[in-house]
């Protein structure tokens, strides 16, 4: 990452980003995993994780962010989140019905491992939302660069 001094924004932005982006990412993970205990959940946490990747992309330029999370893998991960959500819903058919909370009685309320399939659904939604938002961002800035190059 240190060889990319000539791309992206200034050295101030890069240093601050290097210090804070890990904390933003971890905060998103925390919001996702504690979605069934505290305010937040898959949607908000997924957007925070996507914002940390957007932060890297804006500060260091497209090459560094492409090495971490490329445009091809965003589509794969978004589809993976959607399939995981639907698979959890369909697994409930074995026990009671569509979206049946089949893991529920395990774990006591208030602990991290509790609430049945709700944490798993949170993870699926966060994958879907985060990868989808980052894919939209990448598409928009690539198109803009193409337009400004054409001029």
């Amino acid at each position, binding site marked *: 990452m240190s060889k990319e001094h000539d*791309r992206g924004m200034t050295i101030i932005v890069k240093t601050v980003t290097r210090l804070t982006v890990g904390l933003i990412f971890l905060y998103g993970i925390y*919001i996702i995993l504690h*979605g*069934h*205990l*505290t*305010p*937040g*959940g898959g949607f*908000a946490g997924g*957007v*925070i994780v*996507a*914002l940390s990747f*957007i932060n890297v992309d*804006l500060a260091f*330029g*497209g*090459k560094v962010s*492409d090495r971490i999370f490329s445009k091809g893998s965003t*589509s794969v991960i*978004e589809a993976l989140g*959607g399939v995981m*959500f*639907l698979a959890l*819903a369909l697994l409930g058919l074995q026990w009671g019905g*569509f*979206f049946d*909370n089949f893991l*529920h*009685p395990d*774990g006591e*309320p*208030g602990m991290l491992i*509790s*609430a*049945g*399939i*709700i944490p798993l*659904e*949170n993870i699926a*939604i966060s994958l*879907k*939302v985060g990868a*989808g*938002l980052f*894919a*939209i*961002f990448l*598409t*928009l*800035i*690539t*198109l*803009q*660069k*193409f*337009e*400004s*190059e054409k001029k």
Partner: protein
Amino acid sequence: MIELYVLIGLMIAGSLIAIEVKNLLSAVVAVGVVGLGLSIIFLILKAPDVALTQIVVEIAAVVLLIRATLNRDIAMKYCGNRPFGAIMGILFTGFVFVIALITFKDGLNLFGAPLMTVSQFYPLNAIEGTGATNVVSAIILDYRAYDTLGEATVLFTAVVGVLTVMRSPGKKKEEDLQDSK
């Protein structure tokens, strides 16, 4: 409740500035003021889930809007005075005002005061029923999971639509752009 009026006044001022200002970047910043004020209002009204989602989506939207509008000359054209629109706006506002005066002449209820029968069920039964201490999470992922499936479908359709309409022109071009960045 005075802080609510201050925030709402700030939001109205921000939206007016966003419409009237000529510079696009200033307009985007003014739109951001509206979203942040809305987030604080949600927090004051004791809805931390919605406040978190609102502030996060607002930040993402402002970043996207700045990236989309910066360094791009979008033609602005002056529409002139539109007397028909102004008259219709005044008429509709007056109509809503009169209807509200007739309907709420005895005063409004307190915010969230009469708890409805349907929404009483969830705070009382969510913890035993699902094991989740966050009742909002229990509702959107267990009791009303079909809604979340629909929301996920809407998001998927939006992403597929954006990727299709604004797809980069050819694979080779895209690699060139990444190199020339």
